[in-house]
């Protein structure tokens, strides 16, 4: 006989069921699929049977080696230098494409440094993946303080009773409700190398002294431009989260601070910031997660270029899985990304744990 407890549990399960089904179908199952695919040679479409190939997808992504290049020497044994006095080295391809060194086959230079007269070259079997990895981490490292800090600043500014404050709130929040694709397109115009808005503004501010920069076309500025634009886009959302956090802080605490004569900074340091602790953890984790998923901006604005300066892990996962029909390769990237994000969240959880 059904007791009252199991009956009401039944209803509870019924309510939870749609969520369970959706999450299982679209998140949990795909995750296990991805995990499995990454160990096979699964293609998007192919008549060939899928084969288990162990970790070779990961090996291909993560393969790294360091080779030492000795300087070119002329007949007398003197080091050859070019006009600028730079030491000349043999090309890396003389090693990586040399049948005598099969272990370096298919690898490519990632970066190098000088050690004595020799050059140490880090070669990777998947330089694009390595760059995507570094770019993604760079993006995360910059976007977290930029977006989180900017959002907090805005939240502090608009957390006042002023005439028309709702107007500001709406304006700051607007980019969040506009599709990221639309925003990316608009920012392409802003960043345009010739007559983009940004170049025009900078030129106007410097009375024409400013040399126009091709923001998205220059490997040195492309990722930075995307970071700034992404921070701008997401800042409204996090502003709202901060704002809700600010409003949970008891006004009495501010009055206590006022009576003790705390300065603005002291009030922030002793009252506001500690009161935002849980909000800060939430914002930190949400921004980190979102940052690792960076894709749409890249897809619309740069396609990973120029010179891989804006490659990211998710963009590469999609590019390989669908663009190049290599589901297994894309899955391997996704799984690596999953473990990275997991590790980082665990570290964040640990660092921000409740100490008592």
């Amino acid at each position, binding site marked *: 006989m059904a007791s009252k407890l199991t009956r009401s549990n039944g209803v509870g399960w019924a309510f939870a069921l749609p969520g369970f089904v959706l999450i299982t179908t679209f998140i949990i199952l795909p995750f296990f699929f991805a995990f499995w695919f990454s160990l096979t040679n699964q293609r998007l479409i192919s008549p060939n049977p899928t084969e288990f190939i162990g970790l070779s997808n990961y090996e291909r992504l993560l393969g790294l080696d360091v080779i030492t290049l000795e300087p070119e020497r002329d007949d007398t044994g003197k080091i050859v230098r070019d006009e600028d006095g730079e030491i000349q080295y043999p090309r890396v391809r003389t090693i990586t494409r040399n049948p005598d060194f099969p272990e370096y086959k298919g690898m490519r230079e990632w970066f190098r440094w000088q050690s004595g007269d020799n050059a140490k070259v880090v070669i990777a079997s998947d330089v694009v993946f390595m760059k995507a990895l570094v770019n993604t981490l760079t993006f995360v490292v910059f976007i977290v303080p930029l977006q989180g800090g900017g959002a907090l600043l805005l939240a502090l500014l608009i957390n006042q009773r002023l005439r028309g404050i709702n107007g500001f709130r709406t304006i700051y929040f607007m980019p969040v409700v506009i599709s990221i694709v639309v925003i990316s397109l608009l920012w392409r115009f802003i960043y345009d190398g010739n007559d983009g808005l940004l170049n025009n503004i900078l030129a106007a501010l410097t009375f024409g002294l400013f040399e126009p920069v091709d923001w998205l*076309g220059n490997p040195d500025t492309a990722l930075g431009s995307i970071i700034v634009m992404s921070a701008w886009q997401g800042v409204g959302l996090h502003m709202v989260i901060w704002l809700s956090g600010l409003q949970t802080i008891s006004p009495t605490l501010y009055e206590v601070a006022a009576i003790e004569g705390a300065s603005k900074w002291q009030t922030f340091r002793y009252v506001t910031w500690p009161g935002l602790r849980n909000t800060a953890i939430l914002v930190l984790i949400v921004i980190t997660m979102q940052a690792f998923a960076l894709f749409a901006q890249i897809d619309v604005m740069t396609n990973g*270029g120029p010179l891989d300066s804006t490659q990211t892990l998710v963009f590469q996962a999609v590019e390989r899985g669908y663009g*190049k029909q290599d589901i297994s390769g894309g899955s391997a990237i996704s799984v690596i990304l999953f473990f990275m994000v997991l590790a980082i969240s665990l570290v964040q959880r640990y660092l921000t744990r409740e100490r008592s």
Partner: protein
Amino acid sequence: MPNWAWSGYLQPLPIDESEFDDFLPGTKGYWDGKLYSIGLWDAAVALYARESTLDDLGLRRPTLEKPWTGEEFMAALDAAKASGDYEYAFDPGMAWTGEWYPYAFSPFLQSFGGDIVDRSTYKTAEGALNGEAAMEFGEWWQSLFQDGYAPGTSQDPADRDNGFIEGKYAFQWNGNWAAVAALEGVDEVVFLPAPDFGNGSKIGAASWQFGISAASEHPDGAAEFIEFATQDKYLAAFSDGIGLIPATASAAQMTENYKDGGPLAVFYDLSEAQAMVRPVSPGYVVAAKVFEKALADIANGADVADTLDAAVDEIDADIEKNGGYGH
């Protein structure tokens, strides 16, 4: 198409091939010696220019029989650049990412004597995409951007669409689908054949085509539809409707644009004379992506040899991973 045919999603057309004898080669999709798909139209690419540009710069008018050589082409770009009248001398269309790159730019590579893959075996790109001809192509390609002849990968798509019409670019590498708009915007527009970099002028061919799904329960019905649609009058109607090159000469005569003396007739001739299909291989899907990225990287200043090597490695690895793609 080869990718789908190889994967078993398509079946060969149950139609006698002789029915399509007079069709442009680019409209026929062969895989493994069998015809799998047929197109109602083809597309062609030409070098857009203004009569006045040629006159002002004192340039020889290239013809199908005697196109510009590579040197002539570069001399034309130099002259355009030196004139100071244009933002850029040449617009290859870097803003059109995706299939445009292999479709429009691999013919340059072929004209240099290279290719995306070695078409004799389709088993490797080694030598084709990183051989001497390809290196030469790469250096030339890079010089277009490093020396300021052409706008790079960050070109504004709007400029790609309107730049030539607005007079920002002296020459533009563009398809016949844009010709109608160019004719409207610039009445003195001329469509010139691709320059010859040593191995003949080449342009890409093949556009959208009809095929029959392998799972189709009524392939005969589908075939009948295809036969019906490929009648000259419908080929002509399609062309009139969307401006693309009709698949047969007889249909071309029935259209406004492509009949003898029609404003776009030159494209039919180009398609007939210079068209070369992209590599007919299931691996093309990947190779095209790799090629696109290599060209973008080279345009952005990457080392030519390293980039082409990397592209070869990636294409070869993919072919190997796919068991040779059935070649």
